[in-house]
Structure formats: structure tokens, C-alpha cells
């Protein structure tokens, strides 16, 4: 059964299309990473799933209902980002105890334990916290609500690396004990990779890839070597990325399946096959121009 069904969804703001005919499905109890460049439409998509905004066109269903302005969907969904607002009159501990009654599966002992672990001051006001502390505190709410659909929009903004690691560990541990559907958006795939099952890559409001992270790892390879030899080898094949890393030498990224039969030739031609990290691959897949930032400097 699918928790999220998104069919041909478009969201326009005036002339600008934040999401462009996007279709995908997300199954129950999966951890999916929503990856994309700045302005790719990640937040728009997540807010739409959380029911904050309406699709302009197309059909979006969460728990088989339209999420916008829907109380049932709201009860089963929590959306965590760094814009969460709490009343100024609440101290941090008040927030935890006041939000709790709204969510059926709220686990207060877990919330308290995490709160103490990250050594928050119970009397502090939410609005006075630093960016990183705010993200950490909001994430505690995200984990402790144990909502069947938990959405994190850039949850690690401002967190230091130790806290980031702790957050991912805590999330994963609680997920294993209490499976639920989790959506995480980030532009840093490298740090998320280990906890994700699926990855949804979007670019300019359109779907680029939606596949298990294991498949993404096997999707492409990089080949490096002499420019002439490499160009003849890859001739007629679709390149994901091409870069001249030194004079006369070329580096290309290519889909693995397109060279499966010709692996022998690669070595015969003195070319080198390199694995490519999912993080780099996502950057290449969503690249605006073929040559990357280097092109800018070559031209000027």
C-alpha cells in the first residue's frame, strides 16, 4: 500500500513552476531521501504532502486522501523544518508537554531522554535558540511524535557534525523499533546515504530518479584516461557528465549498463574505471551545464 501517491502534480507560483508534472509513489514504512539542488522544489513538495499548500494541477493523495486542509492526514503527519513556530510564553519543556496531546503515538519518555541527552535548558525560549539547537529541538519533536508519516525538511541545518550523526542514529534506531514512513530532504546526500532505503531525486520541479539507494550506487561509473581513446570508446553513448581534468585527459560518467559488454575494452585502451559516489552522481545528474563550475573559469 502506498502512503503517498503523487500523480502528474504541478505547482505554479505565477509564471514560475515550482513542481512540473511530478509523479511518484512512496510505499509504507520506507525511509526516502528527497534530494535536489537549491530551488529544485523540495520544500514545495514536502509542504504539499504535509497539507500546507494545494497542488495547482494533478492529484496528490496521502493515506488515500487529499492532504490539504485535512484533519485525518494532519493527525498522521508531522512536518519538521526550521520555521516551526511555538508560542513565546512556552518554555522548551512546555512545548514538549503541550504538543504531546495532539499526537496519539507521542512517546514522552523518548522525548525527555533525547532532550536531556542534547542538554537543553528546560527554561529556555524557543525563539532565542541558535539555528543548530532549534533544528535539534525540532527533530526531537519529529522523532517523538512517531507519526505514520514523518517529514523532515533539511533537518540538520546548522547542526554540528556530532549532533548530525547522533540525530541520524537516533532516527534510525527509533525507526527500526517503530517503523513508519519517513521523508527526509537534503542536499547533502553523503551524510544521509547510510540510513536511506530509497532516493527521490528532483530537478527543476521534475522527477529525475526514484530508486533504491543500492541501485543508485550501481547505476553509473566514471572512466578516466586519454582524451582520444576515451572519446572513441564512448562514442554514440549517452554521457551523464564530462570533464577535462588535465590537458589531454578526460573524465566521463556513464551509465553502467551501456558499457556492460565492453568492460574488457576499457582496460585494453588504458582507461581507468572508477566507482562514483551517489552524492556526486546526483550532482552530475542535476547539473545545469555539462562542464560544471570549471567551465565558468575557462571562459572568462
Amino acid at each position, binding site marked *: 500500500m502506498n502512503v503517498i501517491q503523487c500523480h502528474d502534480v504541478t505547482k505554479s507560483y505565477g509564471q514560475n513552476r515550482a513542481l512540473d508534472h511530478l509523479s511518484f509513489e512512496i510505499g509504507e514504512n520506507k525511509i526516502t531521501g528527497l534530494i535536489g539542488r537549491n530551488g529544485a522544489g523540495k520544500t514545495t513538495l514536502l509542504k504539499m504532502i504535509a497539507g500546507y499548500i494545494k497542488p495547482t494541477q494533478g492529484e496528490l493523495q496521502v493515506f488515500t486522501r487529499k492532504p490539504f486542509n485535512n484533519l*485525518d492526514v494532519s493527525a498522521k503527519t508531522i512536518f519538521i523544518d526550521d520555521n516551526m513556530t511555538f508560542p513565546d510564553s512556552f518554555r522548551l519543556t512546555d512545548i514538549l508537554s503541550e504538543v504531546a*496531546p495532539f499526537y496519539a503515538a507521542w512517546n514522552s519518555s523518548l522525548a525527555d531522554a533525547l532532550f536531556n541527552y542534547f542538554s537543553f535548558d528546560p527554561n529556555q525560549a524557543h525563539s532565542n535558540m541558535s539555528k543548530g539547537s532549534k533544528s535539534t529541538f525540532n527533530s526531537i519533536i519529529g522523532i517523538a511524535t512517531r507519526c505514520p508519516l514523518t517529514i523532515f525538511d533539511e533537518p540538520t541545518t546548522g547542526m554540528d557534525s556530532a549532533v548530525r550523526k547522533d540525530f541520524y542514529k537516533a532516527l534510525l534506531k527509533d525507526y527500526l523499533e517503530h517503523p513508519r514512513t519517513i521523508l527526509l530532504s537534503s542536499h547533502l546526500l553523503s551524510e544521509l546515504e547510510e540510513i536511506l532505503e530509497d532516493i527521490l531525486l528532483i530537478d527543476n520541479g521534475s522527477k529525475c530518479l526514484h530508486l533504491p539507494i543500492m541501485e543508485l550506487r550501481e547505476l553509473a561509473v566514471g572512466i578516466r584516461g586519454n582524451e582520444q581513446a576515451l572519446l572513441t570508446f564512448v562514442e554514440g553513448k549517452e554521457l551523464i557528465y564530462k570533464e577535462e581534468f588535465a590537458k589531454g585527459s578526460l573524465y566521463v560518467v556513464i551509465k553502467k549498463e551501456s558499457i556492460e559488454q565492453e568492460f574488457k575494452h576499457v582496460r585494453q585502451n588504458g582507461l581507468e574505471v572508477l566507482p562514483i559516489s551517489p552524492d556526486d552522481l546526483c550532482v552530475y545528474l542535476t547539473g545545469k551545464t555539462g562542464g560544471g563550475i570549471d567551465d565558468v573559469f575557462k571562459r572568462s
Partner: protein
Amino acid sequence: MMSLKEVDLLSISIKQYVYKLKAYSTLFYGLLLAQIITLFFSLNGISHMSSSNGELSVSVNSYSASLVIVFSFFWILFAAIQLTTKQYKKIENPLVTNRISGNLSNIGFLMTACVFGGITSSLVGVLLRIIMYFTFDRSQIISDEFILAFSDLLLGISVAILYMVLISGMGYLTGMLTKVSMAFVIIIPAVIIGISKAYADIFQSLIKFFTLESSLPLFALKVIITSILMFGVSILLSNRGEVSQ
């Protein structure tokens, strides 16, 4: 895991109401503080009159707590408008909510504020009398109503609450209209001033409809029906489309 346990609108609205009551408790302290300050102003008398003909001089000080009630009316008007602002709406986001539950809890909060404001502002009138009784020369106090009958106090409280309900409805609707279009910030005062000038008689009778009602149950009925209409329209307006985030 996928059990679609239906949530019920009323219980969520009540939870939100309790949440908001705690969240905006400072508003209530603010009103109390303001009432006490206005009380001290009222202790100097709200009007002063003296005359003398050389032999005899008469000096009259009038005291009244009406200033406190007027102040409470303004307070509820601003509270109602404020609840419709984007900033206040944002605190609903982390909670289980939809537009209707958000509005219902707001209305519940405003009604509580009306009751609180109505009772406290009427009691300030009693407090004013008590302070005067002990601090002034009693032989110089002239009033038929100095000793306030309990039934009159109750009547005063009820009327103050009802007026505040009416005002909160106007404020809430105004706030919602400005969410639909900022043009209403200009249109609303323009229409009110326009009607009061061009159709003075209609405007007068509209005011008289509420202010000259001598029967409490009838007055209550008028206020309740008008307020239900105003809040109802507000809910319809907010349920219409999406509010920009």
C-alpha cells in the same frame, strides 16, 4: 500500522483551544494590568466641574469606571484581529489542525477572553467604589447607585460580555477580510464612514438596534445571531483556499 483512526474535529478543536489559552495567557495579564492603570486614572475623576458666586462655591467630581470598559472593548478588538494574522496562524502548524479546527479554537479563545474581560472590567467598577468608600469623605459622595445591587452587577457583566462578543466578531471578520485582500484595510473604514454620512438614518438605526435594546434576552439574541453570522462568514472565508506560507 495503517489503521485510519478517524480524528474528531471537536476533540482536536478543544485541544487547540487549551493550547491557545496557555499560549496567549500573557494577553490576559496585559488586560489586568491595563485595567488597574485605567482605574488609577479614573480615581482622579473622569470629569470635573466647579462654580462659585462669591459666597458659595460648588465643586463636583464625577467618577466612573466606564473608561475601563471602553478600554476592554479595544483590547478584545485587537485580540480578535491579531488571531487572524499570519504570525499567530503559524503556531498551529506543528499541531494536528485544519482550517475549521483552527477557527473553532480561536472563537473559543475569544469567547473566554470576552467573559474574562467582561467580568474583570465590571469588577473594576466595584473596586473603584470600594477605594472611594474608604479613602474619600463619605458625606460628600452623592450617588443613587453608589451601592451597587448584585443584580445590577450581573446585568453589567452580561452586557459587557455581550458587547465584547459583538466586537470580537467584528474584529475577527475584519481580520479575515484583510487576509482575502489587503484592499479591505481601506475599504472597510471607507464603507463605514460612507454609510454613516450618506445613509445616516440607516446607520443610526443600526447602532440603535444594539444600543437601545432594553430587554437583556432580546439584546443577547441580537448579539448572538449577529456574531454567529460574522464568525460563520470568517470560517467560510478562511476555508476557501490556501494561505500563503
